[in-house]
């Protein structure tokens, strides 16, 4: 009787087959399913990514033999890290970290209003337009954009021309006269490097902030206003704290991307090195892999510290 019921499918649908059996099996073992879903990513992250990171870390504990110029792999030493603290190397680190911090700050300040409007006011067609506007620059090659900026910022470039047409060349002259960050023209000054960094990484700041602001429920904003908060107070006490994880996420992108980049400072800016360029130079022509590795560890440590501080400040409490 029961056999008949099972095969005629009065209750149980009769769609067995090989594929059906597999589905049934996974339905009964959801944990195994999750495990299988994660395996490729875990393998990738565990072996390819973390593995190479560890190999890199190991390299940084070797040192180069000063006489032969060969890497001495026979012993572990902190000599290479001591090398990092030499004035010319410390300079590179400070320069890069300062630039990354400024770029991150500026990106956050510029991105927030854009992200806020997109999240709270843009609907339908306007939202599509926003995504298009933010993502469009990412469609073209990074190198093309940077060389385009070189033309914009050059002494004979578009920006100079615009300033001249508006008879405000003195603003540009004043900017370029500022010591350290100024220079002969925007394209060979830190200001130029900074502008291009901000331009190139801005989408990576806008998108996470937009997502975070969008997740702030409207009724919290209404409640704040209802309880007597002027818009600025609502921003400070409700919107900003709740959007903070998005800002942190965005700043991780802009900060670490700036720390690691070696093309922008090479094309635009003074000829002084950034961490990325130093790594490039040491692992290439100089053949000093240990120092290159040690330089690479610097951004990792800085990002670790940054995240730890953000967590301590409660940036992720609302997640």
């Amino acid at each position: 009787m029961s056999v008949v019921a099972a095969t005629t499918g009065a209750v149980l649908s009769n769609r067995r087959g090989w594929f059906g059996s597999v589905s049934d099996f996974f339905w009964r073992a959801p944990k195994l399913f999750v495990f299988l879903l994660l395996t490729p990513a875990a393998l990738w992250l565990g072996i390819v990514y973390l593995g190479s990171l560890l190999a890199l870390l190991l390299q940084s504990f070797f040192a180069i033999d000063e006489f032969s110029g060969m890497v001495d792999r026979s012993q572990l030493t902190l000599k290479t890290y001591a090398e990092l603290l030499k004035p010319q190397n410390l300079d590179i680190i400070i320069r890069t970290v300062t630039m990354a911090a400024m770029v991150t700050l500026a990106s956050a300040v510029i991105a927030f209003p854009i992200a806020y409007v997109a999240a709270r006011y843009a609907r339908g067609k306007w939202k599509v337009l926003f995504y298009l506007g933010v993502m469009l620059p990412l469609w073209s090659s990074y190198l093309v954009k940077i060389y385009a900026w070189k033309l914009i910022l050059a002494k004979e470039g578009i920006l100079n021309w615009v300033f001249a047409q508006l008879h405000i060349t003195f603003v540009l002259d004043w900017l370029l006269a500022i010591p350290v960050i100024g220079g002969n023209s925007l394209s060979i000054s830190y200001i130029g490097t900074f502008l291009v960094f901000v331009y190139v990484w801005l989408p990576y700041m806008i998108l996470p902030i937009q997502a975070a602001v969008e997740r702030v429920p409207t009724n919290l904003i209404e409640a704040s206003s209802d309880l007597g908060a002027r818009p600025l107070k609502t921003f400070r006490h409700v919107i900003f704290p709740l959007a903070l994880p998005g800002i942190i996420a965005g700043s991780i992108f802009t900060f670490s991307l700036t720390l690691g980049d070696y093309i922008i400072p090479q094309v635009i800016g003074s000829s002084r090195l950034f961490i990325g360029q130093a790594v490039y130079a040491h692992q290439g022509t100089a053949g000093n892999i240990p120092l290159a590795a040690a330089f690479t560890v610097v951004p990792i440590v800085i990002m670790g510290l940054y995240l730890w501080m953000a967590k301590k400040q409660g940036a992720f409490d609302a997640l």
Partner: protein
Amino acid sequence: MTAAVSLQKVSRHYGLVRALDGVDLEVAPGEFFAMLGPSGSGKTTCLRLIAGFEQPTSGRIEIFGEAVVGVPPYRRNVNTVFQDYALFPHMNVAENVAYPLMLRKLDRATQRREAAAALELVKLSGYGERRPGQLSGGQRQRVALARAIVSKPKVLLLDEPLGALDLKLREQMQEELKALQKALGITFVFVTHDQGEALSMADRVAVFDQGKVMQVGTPEDVYRRPKSRFVADFVGSSNILPPEFVQSVLGESRWASLRPEAIHVVAAGEGASRLTGTVVSRSYLGSTTRLGIELKGAHIHAVVPSGDDVPTEGMRVSLGFAKDALHLMENEG
């Protein structure tokens, strides 16, 4: 006396949709006022206009005599308890409750004291350190209430505050809200789609339908003397009788309502009533039993006390009711 809240010919249109259409309302100071209606009837829009989240398309709104159209919510001494509580997830309970006090720049000690007092009022003392995410729905509800009353607003608006609670908790909160309102003396304006809630809690009820106020009155008014078929139907489960039927009973051709519990049902022939019918359905509700009775020209529901003598399905019965239980309605609609 100045009304606590007064709406004069207030309309709110969204494009072609008339969410609120020429509403006139007066809420007296210290009153527990309920706005009752089905979803989309305009009651929540009405509340949002009083709170200041939205502006009327036309009309005038006054709060204690002051015109408030164009005044932002943060300048109105009116607080709202939101349907889904709207507690700030990044603040603990004490910080949530002290939020309005913090904005008013009271010193820390006063903030703490007042917040603790408000939490005590809603029976949540000792929960100050918890996060909203760690509380149950009923507790969040109380925090929202404490936060809304801590700054002693002139009017408290409640948007279906009990909607998300289960029945038992809801009944308990109904009593507590009522007691709280008495203790504080604040005017409460309460939005609900639950007629039982409106009737049991409110001093007066406004019944909304399709952006209009259909009737304003005491719970007894709207329950026993509905002005229109809509009110009779929405408030409770009245029998709505067509003019032809009423003509045959009262000799007057008007729509009328008849409360199921006002009807006496006896076996046919026992009473002197001319109204006889057949029981077609019978559902046991505990202390009462609900009967569906088919008459000539009408189908009537009656609620009778449960007992051994309740007629069964298929029985012929006579109906009796006091003449004034049959309420004639003013409006045809």
